[in-house]
């Protein structure tokens, strides 16, 4: 189980391969990757602020909760902060389990909690200026299913 919070870009492919190879006994690996949407070139960059100290603690608690709910063989969360360009990967989640239902459910659970309960805030920097991304009601509502 690993939680990584960093400013640097990460290599989705290298992390996916290492995760799948290390997940001994797993039959199913799910990854989710969040990217900075490039809205036809209108979005020039994204600035991500976080709460050092609380961030890793909060994510680790989510991973522990996921492990308590599903028989996970492994889990990984990577989240970046700082300035990111359009198309860059913001974060990823990976889960490994014996069967796919557990791996999918745990990945979706972690995503729903990360979206609304991990201390990150995104600011979109476009040609029109900078604007804090508003929380979406659909994200808050997504928590209710768990």
């Amino acid at each position, binding site marked *: 189980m690993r939680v990584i919070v960093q400013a640097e870009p990460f290599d989705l492919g290298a992390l996916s391969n290492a995760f799948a190879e290390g997940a001994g006994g797993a039959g199913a690996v799910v990854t989710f990757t*969040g990217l900075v949407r490039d809205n036809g070139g209108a979005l020039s960059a994204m600035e*991500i*602020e*976080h*709460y050092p*100290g*609380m961030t890793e*603690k*909060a994510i680790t608690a989510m991973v522990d909760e996921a492990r308590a709910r599903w028989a996970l063989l492994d889990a990984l969360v990577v*989240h970046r902060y700082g300035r990111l360009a359009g198309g860059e990967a*913001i*974060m990823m989640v990976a889960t490994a389990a014996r069967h796919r239902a557990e791996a999918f459910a745990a990945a979706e659970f972690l*995503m729903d909690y*990360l*979206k*609304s*309960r*991990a*201390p*990150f*805030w*995104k*600011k979109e920097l476009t040609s029109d200026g900078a604007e*804090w*991304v*508003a*929380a979406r009601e659909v994200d*808050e509502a997504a928590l209710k299913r768990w």
Partner: protein
Amino acid sequence: MIEVLYFAWVRERIGAPRERIETEAATVMGLIEDLRARDERYAWAFADMTSLRVAVDQELAGFDAPLAGVREIAFFPPMTGG
């Protein structure tokens, strides 16, 4: 003395990422009322409580959380990570 942290637009409205505050308030809400009375920057940052979240010693908490023994309070808008 409590370390008070601000993030995202709360930080921008207040104009500082953190400060040490001496307070006699018993709860988070009491602290917010103290701050609001202090300066209009705070009144602006804390104007809409529905878009405000608080962490007490790095755990999400309610506005009624007590301040006794607390070392760090953080105010911020709803999170938008992922």
